[in-house]
């Protein structure tokens, strides 16, 4: 049998084994990047054949940490795509202001940078006091970091620049306390964010959201899983609720496409009809 065919079988069996042991379901992830991450695991543990990772995974009590670290992409930053945050201020904030309270679901929040970015925007637009942000991820290691809200000062330089490009109204240093080489996010920004474990692949919907944020998560899924997750978002949004996805993601050709209208094509902001 050709090597690549054999490897595909090994990948499928490995993903099935992860699902059965931990309940993390990567079976409908886009294969090319899953393969890359399995190769990273092989390198880390010096394992030549993919099928040889399976016994290791089944017996090693701490292997789940390696799976989470390797398979869950936690690369994120504050105010990633400053133009997008500008558009949130212009196109979403005025509508949110009309509600007596605001519920926002940030799905796939990883280590929390984007949840805090959103909190800053809402604070500056004087909406934060009546908002609850449910920031969820399936990766508890990442959620732990998100709750702490401690980032390196090196990163903060870049965040500051992006904050200004996103139309920030104050000095970015108002939102954190510097200590040693770290920046600790101000407690007032944490007050209305609830960080919680939720798995988009296997868990159900969140009711009555006014806005759902899910950026650069769908790119890791295949079409089947993308469609499941988009339907989850559709059923979690109120009528006229907003959906914001990553700049390279789209609702085109999905089964919910016709239920949404495009608010900002470039920044991928949609509104449920």
């Amino acid at each position: 049998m050709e090597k690549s065919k054999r490897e595909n079988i090994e990948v499928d069996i490995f993903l099935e084994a992860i699902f059965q042991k931990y309940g993390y379901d990567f079976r409908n992830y886009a294969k090319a990047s899953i393969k890359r991450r399995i190769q990273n695991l092989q390198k880390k543990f010096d394992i030549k054949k993919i099928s040889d990772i399976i016994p290791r995974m089944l017996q090693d009590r701490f292997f789940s940490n390696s799976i989470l670290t390797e398979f869950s992409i936690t690369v994120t930053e504050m105010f990633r795509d400053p133009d997008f945050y500008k558009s949130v201020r212009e196109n979403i904030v005025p509508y949110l202001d009309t509600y007596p309270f605001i519920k926002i679901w940030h799905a796939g929040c990883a280590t929390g940078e984007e949840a805090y970015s959103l909190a800053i925007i809402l604070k500056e637009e004087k909406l934060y006091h009546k908002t609850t942000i449910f920031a969820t991820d399936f990766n508890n290691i990442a959620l732990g970091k998100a709750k702490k809200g401690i980032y390196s000062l090196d990163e903060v330089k870049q965040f500051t620049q992006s904050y200004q490009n996103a139309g920030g109204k104050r000095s970015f240093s108002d939102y954190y306390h510097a200590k040693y080489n770290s920046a600790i996010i101000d407690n007032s920004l944490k007050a209305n964010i609830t960080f919680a474990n939720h798995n988009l692949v296997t868990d159900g919907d969140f009711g009555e959201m006014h806005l759902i944020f899910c950026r650069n998560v769908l790119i890791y899924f295949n079409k089947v899983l993308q469609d499941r997750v988009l339907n989850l978002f559709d059923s979690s949004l109120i009528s006229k609720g907003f959906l914001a996805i990553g700049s390279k993601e789209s609702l085109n050709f999905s089964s919910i496409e016709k239920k949404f209208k495009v608010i900002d094509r470039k920044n991928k902001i949609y509104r449920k009809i």
Partner: protein
Amino acid sequence: MKTDNNFNISDFKAVVIGVSAGGFETLTKLFSTLPEDFPLPIIIVQHVYKYQSGYLFEHFNKHCALKVKEADEKEAVEPGNIYFAPPNYHLLIEEDKTFSLSIDEKVNYSRPSIDILFKCAAEVYKNQLIGIILTGANDDGAEGMCRIKESGGLIIAQNPNDAEQPFMPKAAIKKAGIDCVLTLNEISEFLTKQKAVSK
């Protein structure tokens, strides 16, 4: 059966190109020589600033008979199109020859990374892939070229003396042991079927 060691463009299904500093001029020149009926998809990682505007595509489309565009998530790879990795995303190819994007960590300080595209493309296209490294000032792509070679594909480096920035082709030649070192004109002659090359 092939009897000699010479390769023609018709032996292949796709071209991947890695290019960095000096890429704008170099690609403009290369694209202007490609005919309308060029038979393969060309997939490119160029290191660019992360919030690049659409100007690049306007420019390239003006100077090229083929369609030049950014690769979209889940888009099918079509022959005769030139695709660029979007700024700040890695570009991958799935087995069914559609594109995937990712924002994984930078590789070789780069996102998009040439190595990521090349390794992925080598798995999908195997010995029907041409990998080309053009001008650049870092060593991204050298490992990817090794992988293309292992899979039986053809690897070509721009002659460092001909490149605006010689470091990247030099690094690839050294690491992957590339025999096929050509000037930009020769690369264009090979792609436009005027010339066969040997591995």
